[in-house]
């Protein structure tokens, strides 16, 4: 299977300028690649840099050195040096993102939140609506909530709206930061099923899963961040 994503010697430290310039070295020469149809799980203790690495793959965090290359429409693009415009484009057509928390937009209904990525790439509104409804149903979001803005939803409901949004498009690359964190086992297995389907159609998946059962179900390989030498300060 073809490689979709490769990180080469990615390093990052945070500099907290307003707290005495403290430096937190978090990523040290992280290197891996992910193929189509494969799920790489980032592993390591709390604070080891899993989310930092995942955010760097999405262009949400900068890195100090190294390359993060994604295959998009036949080309390799280095996210670590790409322009904001290129990254936005990449997020529209190549990389999907699901985190634990939904960023609610005032007055926008759950259904519209889910449909938006499909509309953004010029998708037909009817098709988008149908697909959004199917996903919300699969994730057991009660239909009487669909027309409401998710601001008042429970944490788990918001999370499932977020997951539906992340799966509305068949992104070639999917980044998942604890998508099952506050879900019961029924909903967690619905998510596992979605991930499996994505892998089957050839998506390259990078995820973080605290729940070891979920992890075992979806992971093809683990990438361990705890083995990095992050204990040496400054």
């Amino acid at each position, binding site marked *: 299977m073809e490689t979709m994503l490769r990180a080469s010697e990615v390093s990052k430290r945070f*500099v907290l300028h307003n707290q005495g310039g403290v430096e937190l070295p978090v990523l040290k020469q992280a290197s891996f690649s992910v193929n189509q149809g494969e799920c790489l799980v980032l592993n390591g203790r709390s604070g080891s840099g899993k989310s930092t690495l995942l955010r760097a793959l999405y262009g*949400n965090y900068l890195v100090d050195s190294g390359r993060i290359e994604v295959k998009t429409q036949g080309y390799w693009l280095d996210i670590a040096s790409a322009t904001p415009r290129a990254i*936005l484009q990449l997020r529209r057509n190549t990389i999907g993102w699901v985190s634990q928390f939904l960023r609610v937009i005032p007055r926008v209904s759950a259904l519209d939140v889910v449909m938006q990525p499909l509309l953004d*790439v010029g998708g037909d509104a009817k098709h988008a609506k149908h697909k959004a409804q199917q996903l919300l149903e699969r994730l057991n979001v009660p239909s009487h909530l669909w027309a409401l803005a998710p601001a008042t939803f429970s944490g788990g409901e918001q999370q499932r709206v977020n997951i539906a949004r992340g799966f509305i498009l068949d992104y070639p690359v999917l980044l998942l930061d604890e998508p099952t964190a506050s879900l019961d086992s029924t909903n967690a297995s619905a998510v596992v099923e979605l991930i499996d389907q994505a892998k089957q159609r050839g998506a390259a998946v990078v995820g973080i899963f605290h729940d070891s059962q979920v992890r075992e179900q979806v992971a093809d390989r683990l990438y361990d961040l705890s083995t990095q030498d992050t204990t040496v300060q400054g």
Partner: protein
Amino acid sequence: MTAINSVISRPSAAQMKVQAEIHGQADRPLLVVDALSKLYAPGKGFSEVSFALYSGEVLGIVGESGSGKSTLLQALSGRLKPDAGSVLYRGYAQGDQGDQMNDLYGMPESERRRLLRTEWGVVHQHPMDGLRPRVSAGGNIGERLMAKGLSHYGNIREQALRWLSDVEIDQGRVDDLPTTFSGGMQQRLQIARNLVTHPQLIFMDEPTGGLDVSVQARLLDLLRRLVNELNLSVIIVTHDLAVARLLADRLMVMKQSRVVESGLTDQVLDDPQHPYTQLLVSSVLQN
């Protein structure tokens, strides 16, 4: 999502965006700003600002009070001659055949004024700065259409009515003076007045500034939808990081007349690099 459906009897913005990408137009900037400076005194104003803005892009400008945000916006929008540097704009200058890059401060003043009345729009923080107090709501909207050469009264009134409902103002208020409107309604009217001519580029200075929180949310939602559906390019000055996050694709952070950091909005807010940006982000309770 019904309010502004009437605006779009054309392909959706997303479809237009895809089209533009296919035809390579998206790769040509709408505005190119190079080493632009205007200083009233050392540190008062802005200096050495450079960026390119593309069609459909929203650029947010945030930063310290007095750092030069409003001054910069005035210069970008052709209302304040800079000391140095240039602003190039892609558009149809009068008499031109095709579109080309025009030097904003190289063109005659009359041409800059025409731009501001037609292809561009300016949304002021205080809505009455951008509205005519003694002209009805409908007249305020119609004025820009007339500036663009439309003269048929029935047409103008019809568009004014449609825009009133697009910005969620009761059509029955069309003959009322804006001075009888609430602040939030005035701000929406100002937006309708600007958008009626389908401008390419809108400049906004703290458009939600004087409004209370619930009115702000409604206005923001409206702006977000209009930007998406009309494929507008926007440069927006705001001190509110939540507004910036919601509306802007990219951010520039200003401090003491300089741009100290710029990048993708979520990246600048979630992983700020400059000490001032870190301070700004950490001062907000949660965003």
